[in-house]
């Protein structure tokens, strides 16, 4: 309760997760059912957010899109954490040549401006939801690598590590027992923020036609399709964009709050 903005963020995130998980049950209409007689209809009492270009219920599609965005966020973060955190720990703990090589790789990946690397990857691998998830996951690898390396470097010099080594602990034990639990807090904070970034990136890729297949109710896809009717049926682009913005906002507020609560040193 000390951080009202974080509470608001948590509320938005929980609402988003609830929507994604229960979309099949709470959707008022079949998200995939086209009805050309209802094409591009404005919001009404039966279709709360209106209908898209082929008459599908926008509200139902947004709910199912929440599930896709949640999946993209979690999988991309999973890729980033599993690869990036390991790179960071190895780089920070062992140092030397491993640190040099890993950090140069990280520098190269970070040299690409924001989403350009993901665009390039999907352009060459072929547009699909899976490739978009992989590409966005790869974007987050250097972020985690740097973060975890920094944390590992600071914890490596702590007295309790030295004591553990003096008691005969090997590197593997020290990493697992001491380093990993201590770098967990910054990973949690970064993951919350990274889910927001992943959802934004996914929407951008979808908007460029590099994400999910056209009929999948991914929010970026919906924006791309709705763009053609922006002057005749602007509601088709308003609501998916609002949804993206508020979900990103929610995760960002939650991430900031977690950072303040879990690790004041990160402030």
């Amino acid at each position, binding site marked *: 309760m000390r951080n009202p903005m974080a509470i608001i963020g948590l509320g938005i995130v929980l609402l988003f997760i609830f929507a994604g998980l229960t979309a099949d049950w709470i959707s008022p209409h079949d998200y995939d059912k086209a009805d050309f007689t209802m094409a591009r209809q404005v919001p009404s009492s039966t279709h709360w957010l209106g209908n898209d270009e082929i008459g599908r219920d926008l509200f139902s599609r947004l709910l199912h899109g929440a599930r896709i965005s949640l999946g993209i966020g979690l999988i991309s973060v999973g890729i980033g954490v599993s690869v990036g955190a390991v790179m960071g720990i190895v780089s920070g703990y062992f140092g030397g040549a491993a640190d040099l090589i890993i950090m140069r790789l990280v520098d190269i990946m970070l040299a*690409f401006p*924001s989403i*350009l690397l993901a665009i390039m*990857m999907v352009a060459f*691998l072929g547009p699909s939801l899976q490739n978009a998830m992989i590409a966005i996951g790869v974007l987050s690898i250097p972020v985690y690598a740097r973060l975890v390396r920094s944390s590992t470097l600071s914890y490596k010099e702590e007295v309790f590590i030295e004591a553990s080594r003096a008691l005969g602990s090997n590197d593997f034990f020290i990493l697992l027992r001491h380093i990993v639990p201590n770098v967990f807090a910054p990973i949690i904070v970064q993951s919350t923020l990274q889910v927001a970034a992943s959802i934004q990136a996914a*929407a951008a890729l979808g908007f*460029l036609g590099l994400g999910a297949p056209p009929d999948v109710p991914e929010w970026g896809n919906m*924006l791309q399709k709705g763009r053609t009717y922006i*002057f005749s049926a602007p509601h088709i682009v308003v609501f998916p964009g609002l949804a993206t913005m508020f979900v990103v906002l929610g995760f960002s507020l939650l991430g900031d709050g977690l950072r303040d609560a879990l690790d004041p040193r990160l402030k």
Partner: protein
Amino acid sequence: MTTYVLRRLFLAIPVLIGVSFLVFWSIRWVPGDPAIAIAGELATPELIAKVREDMGLDQPILTQYSSYLWRTLQGDMGRSVRSGLPVSDEITTRLPRTLQLAFTSLILSALIGIPIGVFSATRPNSWFDGGTMTIALLGVSMPIFWLGLMLMILFAVLIPKWFGLPGPLLPPTGIGTWQHFVMPSVALAANSMAIQARMTRACMLEVLQQDYIRTARAKGQVEWKVVYNHALRNALLPIVTIVGLQFGTLIGGAVLTETVFAWPGIGRLLVDAIGYRDYPIIQGTVMVITLGFVLTNLIVDILYAYLNPRIRYN
């Protein structure tokens, strides 16, 4: 200073080589024969064989890469599959338009973002502070391309409708007049503006807590001089760095903005090339944009070290 500059240049070289290798290697991610990917799916077997021979695709990968690098350094990035024109020609035609957009957005974001950050910092926890920082947070969360679409709706649909105008207040697409700049620049600048407002506020708050600020006030200095002559001058260093780094980000963000507004820049060239599977164009544009980003960051690092000697002595 010279040692610092040389060290930074030296560190940038492996990054530049790594970037160029990643871009070179990316064509091999395409499922199937890279020669077909480069020549195009409709190419004849003779053309495909020629591409394979010219690109040295039967050579070891390092030989191929060094050949690619040498050609690129000479300005030869291959030919567009779609138009047949040299990739470098296509890029040099489009790049100035993207730079125009990026520069305009950068100036706009700095002119609005920095003063808002300063005002917010001098009135912490006020309604103005709370309001502007909330808007800034929304600005950071908002997809750039969605904001572009909303601006189109506002200026091309709603305002003409409200005021009975015969056509859009601002042209939604195209290039040619200053009016064409407005919406794309605002859309591209919004995210940057929000970041600069937040960072300026944070930097100013930190500086305003310093002892010399308290001393200046205790000596009876008027508040606006305390803020602008003492606080802002010291907070400006990290702010200038952030503004400089934003330029590189704006060039990358132009990909989405140019798509929304049909702005004929390098970002739109990239997106069109993806649609046509014009891999030489994709490689060339990604390379140019990324190199620009790396060099911009390098210049900002060097500038920061020049302005803040403590950096180059650490």
